[in-house]
């Protein structure tokens, strides 16, 4: 990934910044310029709560090259209390236990390393709430 693009995505990845439409209340992660529900253009920035619930999940056994050392690993669509949904890995647990309904917290973690330029790429991963 080129570093300018990575820089551009830091607000959502580092701070879980999302947008809420002032017209219809729809929350999108990351924030968008135009609301996908009502096409409203008045969007307020909000920060998501670092927790949520698994909507659906899988365990990846055949990974992309960059994640070869991590397989098998669980991935899930997680919904935060604000109604935003995001794709995350679910870690620090037995992958097969990650199923719809599981409560998780969202923690700031290293996601991947970019090969040639050596950039460490961060974001959030989910961890089951004990």
């Amino acid at each position, binding site marked *: 990934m080129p570093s300018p693009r990575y820089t551009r995505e830091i607000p959502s990845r580092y701070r879980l910044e999302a947008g809420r439409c002032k017209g219809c209340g729809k929350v999108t992660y990351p924030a968008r310029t135009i609301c996908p529900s009502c096409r409203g253009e008045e969007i307020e920035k909000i920060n998501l709560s670092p927790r949520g619930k698994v*909507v*659906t999940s*899988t*365990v990846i056994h*055949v990974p992309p*090259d960059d994640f070869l050392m991590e397989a098998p690993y669980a991935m899930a669509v997680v919904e935060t209390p604000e109604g935003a949904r995001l*794709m995350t*890995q679910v870690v620090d647990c037995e992958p097969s236990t990650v199923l*719809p309904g599981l409560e998780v917290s969202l923690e700031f973690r290293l*996601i991947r390393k970019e090969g040639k330029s050596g950039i460490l790429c961060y974001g959030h991963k989910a961890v089951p709430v004990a």
Partner: protein
Amino acid sequence: MREVAIVGAGMTRFGELWNQSLRQMFVEAAAGALNDAGADRVDSMYVGCMSGGQFTGQEHLGPLMADQFGMTGVASVHVESACASGGVALRQAFIEVAAGVSDLVLAVGIEKMTDGADVTNVLATAADQELEVYYGVTFPGLYAMIARAHMHTYGTTEEDLAWVSVKNHRHGAKNDKAQFPTEFTVEQVLSSSMVAEPLRLLHCSPVSDGAAAVLLCPLDQAKQYTDRPVKIVGSGLATGSLALADRDDPAFLDSVQKSGERAFKMAGVGPRDIQVAEVHDCFSIAEVCCIEALGFVERGKGGPAAKDGFTAIGGCIPVNTSGGLKAKGHPVGATGVAQAIEIFRQLRGEAGARQVENARLGLAQNMGGSGASSVVHIFQGV
């Protein structure tokens, strides 16, 4: 709008075609379609290909393929909608003939996936790079999440999904163009290696090379080329969100429903009028979701359809008589056109051992990504 017909079809075998390049496959399929129709010219061509650029390093496929086909000078353009590229090429050709802009238009789908590219990464470019792929998800992973949502919401089982593969391989065993014309048992599917839970290897379509082409012209000129033209009576295209997280119900494919509704409306028919269908079974769960979204079964009731024989040849609505993407192979850009060819053969009574009796109306549904684009065509025998 003019009425439009398919008058010729040609395709390569699907599979690991090590000795054939992208251009050679194109020429074989395109020449097959022209020969089938006895035509010696085209006015325009659409080349559906997901990623010649990333699979083989070759872009600018419109003029390249026109040149290779000995037709330098004709209008020719590459169209892309991920795995729906072939179906979209067909739609563009249909629109151009219907609009009266051109009389003889070729729609070709092609893909060369086995030339050494990292297929998992190339296919993942059809998903949302910033929001999904970045975190390590794969295409089988996205469909696995759709499957788990369907199982969680509707009680669909792994065995239900396995039956989709078993059924499609039974059909594909009768197709000499298929990559894997081999039957499998439910036990074999359920004991194949895990790719992304709950999907196993035999729930997934293969990596394939291949090309498929159809020739279109106005219906009132079709008799010049064939005694048995097949009319395109409906065409619908729709989009959905790329990111699975952006969908209200991850177990339902909105774009498939919308594209189906648009095609049915244009054709003036409904799902119960269709006698044979090809749907986009890139993974077993995809067929389940597609038959629901197209209205062949109620929402949530698609799981047992293959097991119950409802979608088998001889059932209420035979689905994927060609073997589907699962058994026939899935050279992604070629798939949409190959689906249309299966319906073309069925409606002309040329499908041999997999012929559906008295098929008059057929449907082909081709989708891109995990359902971010979907294109549906409805065909009628003349």
